[in-house]
C-alpha cells in the first residue's frame, strides 16, 4: 500500500478549488474542449466566474503594513497588484489610547469633538 501524505487532504474545503484548478490548467483534447467549452470558465463552487489576472500582476493577501508596503514597492518597479483586505478600513487607533483622550475631553463638551475627530481621522 502506498503512503498517503496525511496533511494533503487535511483541509477538505480545499478539494473543490483543487478540482477547479485541475480543470483550468489541464489541456483538454479538441473533443473534450468542445464538450466542456460551456463550463470551462466556472469554478467548482457555484457560478462565480474566475477573474484571470494579467500576466505579472501580483495578488496580495492582506492589506496591513506589509501588504500596503508591498503594493507601493511593486508599483515603484512598474508591477501591477491587487490587494485583498478583509477589513473595510485600515487599522484604527487603539481603543485604550483613544479612551484616554476622550476622558480628557469629556469636561469640555468632548463627546461631540471626539466623534467628529474620529470620523475625520478614522479612529
Amino acid at each position, binding site marked *: 500500500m502506498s503512503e498517503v501524505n496525511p496533511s494533503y487532504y487535511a483541509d477538505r474545503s480545499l478539494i473543490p478549488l483543487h478540482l477547479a484548478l*485541475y480543470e483550468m*490548467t489541464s489541456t483538454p483534447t479538441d473533443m473534450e474542449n468542445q464538450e466542456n467549452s460551456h463550463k470551462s470558465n466556472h*469554478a467548482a463552487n457555484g457560478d462565480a*466566474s474566475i477573474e484571470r489576472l494579467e500576466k505579472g500582476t501580483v495578488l496580495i493577501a*492582506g492589506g496591513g503594513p506589509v501588504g500596503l508596503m508591498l503594493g507601493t514597492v511593486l508599483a515603484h518597479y512598474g508591477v501591477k497588484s491587487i490587494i485583498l*483586505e478583509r*477589513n473595510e478600513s*485600515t*487599522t484604527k487607533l487603539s481603543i485604550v489610547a483613544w479612551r484616554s483622550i476622550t476622558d480628557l475631553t469629556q469636561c469640555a463638551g468632548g463627546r461631540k469633538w471626539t466623534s467628529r475627530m474620529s470620523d475625520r*481621522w478614522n479612529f
Partner: protein
Amino acid sequence: MDLTNVRSMELLRRLGFAEEVRKLGTELQIPTMATLIIHLSGVPTTTPYNVYITPGLHTSKAITAWEFPCVEDLRAHIRDQNDGSMPSEPWQRISQAIFERYLKTRCDENPLVDCRFGWKVEKSVESENGVLVEAVQAQSGKKATFFTQYLAACDGASSRTRRDMEIPLDGGPV
C-alpha cells in the same frame, strides 16, 4: 509604541516616503473646532528609543533597559561612522494606525495598485502555472475566484495562505 525599523525606513526613503512618514511620526497635529492644536502621538526626534523591562505598572523601577539613541543622535552616529556599516536612515516611531492610513492613500492614488478592502481571502491552491484564490466579500457574502501567477501572503502570523500552502512556521509560540 510601534517602531518602523531602519531597513523599512531605507525602503521608504527609496520610494520617496521617508520624510513624510517621519513627519507623521514626529508630530501629528489635530486641529480642533477652536484654534487650539493638540499634538497627539508624536515622538520628538530628541526622545531616546529606550525599551524598559518591567513586571508591571505597580513598580516604580524597571528591571532593566535596552538603551537606544534618539533619531537625531542616530543620524549623527550614521554621519560620523561613514564606513558602510551603518543604515542610511534612522528608525522612526509611528502608530500603525497612522502609518497604514498614510500608505493606503499612497496606494489609492497609484493606478498600478488596486485596493479591494472588505474582501477576505478564504482559500488558495497552487499549480505549476499559477495560483487559484477564492475570496469572499465580508458584507455581501459575494464570492470571487482569481487565477494569478503570483500570490503574496501578507496576512499576518496566523496566515491562512501559509496554512493552505503548507509552509510551516519556524519556532513556536513565545
